[in-house]
Protein backbone atom coordinates (compact mmCIF):
# COMPACT_ATOMS: atom_id res chain seq x y z
CA UNK A 1 0.00 0.00 0.00
CA UNK A 2 1.51 3.28 -1.13
CA UNK A 3 0.15 6.70 -0.27
CA UNK A 4 1.46 10.19 -1.02
CA UNK A 5 -0.41 12.71 1.04
CA UNK A 6 -0.33 16.11 2.65
CA UNK A 7 -2.07 14.98 5.87
CA UNK A 8 -0.45 13.31 8.84
CA UNK A 9 -0.96 9.57 9.39
CA UNK A 10 -1.75 7.44 12.45
CA UNK A 11 1.06 4.94 12.97
CA UNK A 12 -1.03 2.60 15.11
CA UNK A 13 -3.88 2.49 12.60
CA UNK A 14 -1.55 1.96 9.64
CA UNK A 15 0.26 -0.91 11.33
CA UNK A 16 -3.01 -2.46 12.48
CA UNK A 17 -4.29 -2.56 8.91
CA UNK A 18 -1.02 -4.16 7.84
CA UNK A 19 -1.14 -6.96 10.40
CA UNK A 20 -4.73 -7.53 11.52
CA UNK A 21 -6.15 -10.90 10.58
CA UNK A 22 -2.93 -12.30 9.13
CA UNK A 23 -1.49 -14.90 11.49
CA UNK A 24 1.26 -15.84 9.02
CA UNK A 25 3.09 -12.71 10.16
CA UNK A 26 5.91 -13.30 12.64
CA UNK A 27 7.64 -9.94 12.34
CA UNK A 28 6.67 -6.35 11.68
CA UNK A 29 9.42 -3.81 11.02
CA UNK A 30 8.82 -0.10 10.66
CA UNK A 31 10.75 3.08 10.09
CA UNK A 32 9.33 6.57 10.51
CA UNK A 33 11.26 9.68 9.50
CA UNK A 34 10.54 12.92 11.37
CA UNK A 35 11.41 16.58 10.88
CA UNK A 36 14.34 17.53 13.12
CA UNK A 37 14.71 21.00 14.55
CA UNK A 38 18.27 21.30 13.34
CA UNK A 39 20.08 20.53 10.14
CA UNK A 40 23.60 20.95 8.78
CA UNK A 41 23.26 24.74 8.72
CA UNK A 42 21.70 25.18 12.17
CA UNK A 43 18.20 25.47 13.58
CA UNK A 44 15.32 24.99 11.21
CA UNK A 45 11.80 26.21 11.82
CA UNK A 46 10.07 24.17 9.10
CA UNK A 47 10.61 22.34 5.85
CA UNK A 48 8.57 22.04 2.69
CA UNK A 49 8.51 18.80 0.77
CA UNK A 50 7.96 18.97 -2.97
CA UNK A 51 7.47 15.92 -5.15
CA UNK A 52 6.74 14.89 -8.72
CA UNK A 53 3.16 13.57 -8.77
CA UNK A 54 2.81 10.58 -11.05
CA UNK A 55 6.50 9.73 -11.06
CA UNK A 56 6.57 9.40 -7.27
CA UNK A 57 3.87 6.73 -7.25
CA UNK A 58 5.62 4.83 -10.06
CA UNK A 59 9.04 4.87 -8.42
CA UNK A 60 7.63 3.83 -5.04
CA UNK A 61 5.68 1.04 -6.74
CA UNK A 62 8.92 -0.22 -8.28
CA UNK A 63 10.75 -0.05 -4.96
CA UNK A 64 7.98 -2.06 -3.29
CA UNK A 65 8.07 -4.61 -6.12
CA UNK A 66 11.83 -4.95 -5.77
CA UNK A 67 11.49 -5.55 -2.00
CA UNK A 68 8.87 -8.23 -2.67
CA UNK A 69 11.19 -9.89 -5.19
CA UNK A 70 14.01 -10.03 -2.65
CA UNK A 71 12.15 -11.04 0.53
CA UNK A 72 9.09 -13.18 1.30
CA UNK A 73 6.85 -10.35 2.50
CA UNK A 74 3.28 -10.54 3.72
CA UNK A 75 2.67 -6.82 3.41
CA UNK A 76 4.28 -3.46 2.64
CA UNK A 77 3.11 0.04 3.58
CA UNK A 78 4.79 3.21 2.34
CA UNK A 79 3.37 6.62 3.22
CA UNK A 80 5.17 9.83 2.31
CA UNK A 81 3.93 13.31 3.08
CA UNK A 82 4.49 16.50 1.10
CA UNK A 83 3.88 20.17 1.87
CA UNK A 84 5.05 22.23 4.81
CA UNK A 85 6.06 20.35 7.96
CA UNK A 86 7.35 21.59 11.28
CA UNK A 87 9.93 19.98 13.60
CA UNK A 88 8.56 16.87 15.29
CA UNK A 89 6.15 16.10 12.44
CA UNK A 90 6.19 12.75 10.66
CA UNK A 91 7.47 12.75 7.07
CA UNK A 92 7.53 9.15 5.97
CA UNK A 93 6.56 5.67 7.14
CA UNK A 94 7.77 2.38 5.70
CA UNK A 95 6.62 -0.88 7.23
CA UNK A 96 6.97 -4.50 6.19
CA UNK A 97 5.63 -7.78 7.53
CA UNK A 98 6.93 -11.27 7.00
CA UNK A 99 6.82 -14.65 8.66
CA UNK A 100 10.53 -14.11 9.26
CA UNK A 101 12.02 -11.40 11.46
CA UNK A 102 15.12 -10.88 9.33
CA UNK A 103 13.11 -10.45 6.12
CA UNK A 104 10.98 -7.78 7.79
CA UNK A 105 13.98 -5.91 9.23
CA UNK A 106 16.11 -6.05 6.09
CA UNK A 107 13.32 -5.13 3.68
CA UNK A 108 12.32 -2.16 5.86
CA UNK A 109 15.89 -0.82 5.82
CA UNK A 110 16.08 -1.48 2.08
CA UNK A 111 12.84 0.43 1.41
CA UNK A 112 13.88 3.58 3.25
CA UNK A 113 17.39 3.51 1.77
CA UNK A 114 16.09 3.18 -1.79
CA UNK A 115 13.25 5.62 -1.25
CA UNK A 116 15.75 8.26 -0.10
CA UNK A 117 17.79 8.03 -3.29
CA UNK A 118 15.13 7.14 -5.87
CA UNK A 119 11.78 8.70 -4.98
CA UNK A 120 11.41 12.22 -6.46
CA UNK A 121 11.04 14.32 -3.31
CA UNK A 122 12.94 17.48 -2.43
CA UNK A 123 13.21 19.31 0.87
CA UNK A 124 13.35 23.07 1.32
CA UNK A 125 14.44 24.05 4.81
CA UNK A 126 13.43 27.28 6.54
CA UNK A 127 15.97 28.57 9.04
CA UNK A 128 17.10 31.81 10.62
CA UNK A 129 19.15 32.57 7.50
CA UNK A 130 16.23 32.07 5.11
CA UNK A 131 15.26 29.10 2.98
CA UNK A 132 17.64 26.55 1.52
CA UNK A 133 17.25 23.42 -0.61
CA UNK A 134 18.64 20.39 1.17
CA UNK A 135 21.66 18.89 -0.59
CA UNK A 136 21.72 15.16 -1.31
CA UNK A 137 24.11 13.36 1.03
CA UNK A 138 26.77 10.92 -0.04
CA UNK A 139 25.99 8.76 3.00
CA UNK A 140 22.49 8.22 1.57
CA UNK A 141 23.97 7.08 -1.74
CA UNK A 142 26.26 4.70 0.12
CA UNK A 143 23.35 3.32 2.13
CA UNK A 144 21.41 2.64 -1.08
CA UNK A 145 24.52 1.17 -2.71
CA UNK A 146 24.68 -1.57 -0.04
CA UNK A 147 21.58 -3.15 -1.58
CA UNK A 148 22.95 -3.31 -5.14
CA UNK A 149 23.17 -6.85 -6.40
Amino acid at each position, binding site marked *: MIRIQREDFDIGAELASLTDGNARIGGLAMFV*GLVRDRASQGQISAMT*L*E*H*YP*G*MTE*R*RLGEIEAEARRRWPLEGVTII*HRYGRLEPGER*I*VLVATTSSHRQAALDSCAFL*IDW*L*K*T*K*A*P*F*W*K*LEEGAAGVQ*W*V*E*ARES*DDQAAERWKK
Partner: protein
Amino acid sequence: MKLLYFAWVRTNIGKAEEEVAAPDHVQTVEDLLDWLATLGPQYAAALDRRNVVKVAVNHEYVEHDHPVRPDDEVALFPPVTGG
Protein backbone atom coordinates in the same frame (compact mmCIF):
# COMPACT_ATOMS: atom_id res chain seq x y z
CA MET B 1 7.48 18.82 -25.39
CA LYS B 2 6.31 19.23 -21.83
CA LEU B 3 9.03 20.34 -19.40
CA LEU B 4 8.74 20.10 -15.61
CA TYR B 5 11.14 21.68 -13.14
CA PHE B 6 11.56 20.82 -9.47
CA ALA B 7 13.36 22.21 -6.42
CA TRP B 8 16.16 24.67 -7.26
CA VAL B 9 15.84 24.02 -10.99
CA ARG B 10 12.27 25.32 -10.63
CA THR B 11 13.10 28.27 -8.38
CA ASN B 12 16.01 29.33 -10.63
CA ILE B 13 14.00 29.11 -13.85
CA GLY B 14 11.05 30.74 -12.14
CA LYS B 15 8.33 28.38 -13.30
CA ALA B 16 7.19 24.82 -12.54
CA GLU B 17 6.41 23.72 -16.09
CA GLU B 18 6.13 24.84 -19.66
CA GLU B 19 5.32 23.52 -23.10
CA VAL B 20 8.22 24.07 -25.52
CA ALA B 21 8.77 23.46 -29.23
CA ALA B 22 12.44 22.56 -29.30
CA PRO B 23 14.36 22.99 -32.57
CA ASP B 24 14.87 19.88 -34.71
CA HIS B 25 18.53 19.51 -33.71
CA VAL B 26 17.43 18.75 -30.12
CA GLN B 27 17.64 14.96 -30.18
CA THR B 28 18.93 14.08 -26.71
CA VAL B 29 18.68 15.32 -23.14
CA GLU B 30 22.11 16.88 -23.60
CA ASP B 31 20.91 18.80 -26.67
CA LEU B 32 17.84 19.92 -24.73
CA LEU B 33 19.92 21.24 -21.82
CA ASP B 34 22.26 23.06 -24.24
CA TRP B 35 19.32 24.70 -25.97
CA LEU B 36 17.49 25.60 -22.74
CA ALA B 37 20.64 27.27 -21.38
CA THR B 38 20.43 29.75 -24.31
CA LEU B 39 16.87 30.83 -23.42
CA GLY B 40 17.95 33.32 -20.76
CA PRO B 41 20.14 33.90 -17.72
CA GLN B 42 17.70 32.16 -15.36
CA TYR B 43 17.90 28.99 -17.49
CA ALA B 44 21.68 29.25 -17.71
CA ALA B 45 21.87 29.60 -13.90
CA ALA B 46 19.52 26.67 -13.31
CA LEU B 47 21.54 24.42 -15.62
CA ASP B 48 24.97 25.68 -14.60
CA ARG B 49 25.82 22.62 -12.50
CA ARG B 50 24.97 20.49 -15.50
CA ASN B 51 26.28 17.18 -14.17
CA VAL B 52 24.17 17.53 -11.03
CA VAL B 53 20.90 17.97 -12.94
CA LYS B 54 18.88 14.75 -12.94
CA VAL B 55 16.47 13.99 -15.75
CA ALA B 56 13.34 11.88 -16.05
CA VAL B 57 11.65 11.23 -19.39
CA ASN B 58 8.06 10.07 -19.01
CA HIS B 59 8.66 9.33 -15.31
CA GLU B 60 11.78 7.21 -15.93
CA TYR B 61 15.24 8.30 -14.83
CA VAL B 62 17.53 8.64 -17.86
CA GLU B 63 21.11 9.63 -18.58
CA HIS B 64 21.96 12.80 -20.51
CA ASP B 65 22.50 10.86 -23.74
CA HIS B 66 18.90 9.61 -23.73
CA PRO B 67 16.78 10.66 -26.75
CA VAL B 68 13.93 13.16 -26.30
CA ARG B 69 10.89 13.45 -28.57
CA PRO B 70 8.30 16.21 -29.05
CA ASP B 71 5.56 14.35 -27.15
CA ASP B 72 7.77 13.46 -24.16
CA GLU B 73 7.31 14.76 -20.64
CA VAL B 74 10.81 15.73 -19.52
CA ALA B 75 11.53 16.64 -15.90
CA LEU B 76 14.70 18.38 -14.67
CA PHE B 77 15.61 18.40 -10.99
CA PRO B 78 18.42 18.13 -8.44
CA PRO B 79 19.32 14.86 -6.69
CA VAL B 80 16.37 13.78 -4.58
CA THR B 81 16.27 14.42 -0.83
CA GLY B 82 13.08 12.80 0.44
CA GLY B 83 12.56 10.24 3.15
